[in-house]
């Protein structure tokens, strides 16, 4: 139980990203609706998934790299600071990538998803979970000398992205199938300010890291 919770947390974060209309499912749905073809929708999902995964993988790899120079108990301070600053910034201004559109190929979608997730701090948010839990595949967990195994990097990226894409795909496909009946009325009533929630989550995570 104790060793499973980081993975659960990673998956839940992924599911949360999947739920956020700004992170991909709505884009895939719109592209499907534009052409009235479910294949256009499905074709858009995988580059969006890869873009998101790239953000996560880069964050975890960075963490692994920085570990070479900084012991865990020192590392938590810069991590907390970076996450805190990003949280503050996101509170003030919700930005999104520019220059995208509705006539996009796989490369555009990959880049869009990567930028969207990176600007969001999707990868950064994983770091507190990883460093707070040396149990994560760190077989020789000794104070100040822990190391992320390649397996952990791959697995954490996979768990997070898979959770995100399951939620995103289900949402996109359900709305595609039911579009003529229910449309997207739900966006008007249920599109919560995910950016604001996320900014708060970043701030809380930063504090948790600092005092943890």
């Amino acid at each position, binding site marked *: 139980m104790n060793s499973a919770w980081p993975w659960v947390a990673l998956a839940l974060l992924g599911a949360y990203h999947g739920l956020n*209309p*700004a992170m991909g499912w*709505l*884009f895939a*749905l*719109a592209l499907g*609706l*534009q052409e*009235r073809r479910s294949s256009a929708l499905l074709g858009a999902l995988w580059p969006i998934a890869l873009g998101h995964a790239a953000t996560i993988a880069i964050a975890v790899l960075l963490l692994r790299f920085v570990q070479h120079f900084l012991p865990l108990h020192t590392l938590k301070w810069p991590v907390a600071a970076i996450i805190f600053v990003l949280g503050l910034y996101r509170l003030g*201004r*919700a930005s*999104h*990538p*520019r*220059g*995208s*559109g*509705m*006539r*996009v190929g796989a490369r555009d979608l990959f880049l*869009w998803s990567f930028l969207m997730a990176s600007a969001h701090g999707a990868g950064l948010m994983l770091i507190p979970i990883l460093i707070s839990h040396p149990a994560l595949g760190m077989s020789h967990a000794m104070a100040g000398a822990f190391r992320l195994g390649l397996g952990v990097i791959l697995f954490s990226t996979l768990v997070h992205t898979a959770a995100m894409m399951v939620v995103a795909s289900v949402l996109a496909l359900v709305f595609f199938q039911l579009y003529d009946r229910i*449309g*997207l*009325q739900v*966006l*008007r*009533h*249920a*599109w*919560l*300010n995910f*950016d*604001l929630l996320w900014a708060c989550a970043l701030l809380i995570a930063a504090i948790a890291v600092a005092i943890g």
Partner: protein
Amino acid sequence: MLLKADPTFYPSPKLAAQAPPEKLAYVAALNATGSARPDELAVVNIDAQSRTYGGIVGRVEMPHAGDELHHFGWNACSSALCPYAPHPHVERRYLIVPGLRSSRIHVLDTKPHPEKPKIVKVIEPQSVHQRTGYSRPHTVHCGPDGIYLSALGSPSGDGPGGIFALDHDNFEPLGRWEVERGPQHFGYDFAWHLGYDIVVTSEWGTPNMVENGVNPELLLAGKYGHSLHIWDLRKRRHLQALDLGSEQQMVLELRPAHDPTKAYGFVGVVTSLKDLSSSIWLWHKTTATSDGTFEIKKVIEIPAEAADPAQLPPLLQGFKAVPPLLTDINLSLDDCFLYASCWGTGEMRQYEVSDPFHPKLVGSVHIGGIVRHGPHPARPNQPLNGGPQMVELSRDGQRVFFTNSLYAAWDRQFYPEGIGGWMVKLDVAPQGGIQFDSKFFVEFGELRPHQVRLQGGDASSDFYCYP
């Protein structure tokens, strides 16, 4: 910043058409008397249940005289729900109100008192000139990633006209939009096909060609704008020019299909040099080839009407006819009904355009007009001048509002006696057909009303990313 999406944003035109009836209209009103009185933004009550229905319930004076308020628009609209640049938690709250002559841009806050908007920011002309290289801002649209304005020309009053953007958050001018403008020189209106990443722009003339009135020499030589331009929205590059022929003078209002999966739209042409007729053209994506080019075709022609020269202003006496002077068109959210303002003949026409290639005339009312001077049912004995001009529709398509002034320097040439400002409303029958609401006749006195925007959005304010 809102916790839930702004309730006036609708993902699709279909859903927007189910919006509740609007309660207020904002109307740009121009002081053309030459006095030091500034132009104003008037607030008109359009709530039929209200005691002050059809009355002006608020007025906001601009800080300076001589702006020539003309077109204006919202800071944000339904395009904020577009999937690639979502920002649904900004508010539709600010009206961006440019002075077409002064190049001064006013930002008005409609909250917390929608009937008493407040000027919260003024962008001075120098700032627009320096940052964008443009002047004479015209159309305002809220785009998926910013506020866009078209401009008629450069600060010197020559071309080229073009498009510039304002920052979402602080409304500062951001610079010119075009990366590569190709042969485009004249500016006027612009519109998007968001589903295709396409921008369409139209042509009037440079400020120097229009600010002292229509120049008959230039007009008869076919020198005013007669083309449409198609652009790549993402790359900001010119793709294609669609020339209607130089006898088609002044290609103005652009009304693209609201359904983002459809790549067609209507544009009005003020006059033909051949016979003074006005026309409406349909631009559409070519289906024969897959290279994404557009074609254009005339689908409506409105003839000039023979008239006694004694009843005509000097500019028209030689022609012995009153031209329709089609100066605005508007398309209902369901893409089914097209309205055409004939400012010269004093007629508002309604066409059924569900087959855009074959419009059917299904409704017509007369009011004002250079020769006709038609009255309103509220005042059957009072001849009116000016004619149907800027036309706006409610989102459900059941109510049509229009005003009677065009542009001060041109008003003078076609209605030399001066224009008494008015705004009227039509009720639309479900299957087509229009008639005046006899309870709605707003008199503006010496002020001249131009564009109308409805609270919460109307048929030309919002662009959509979902069918």
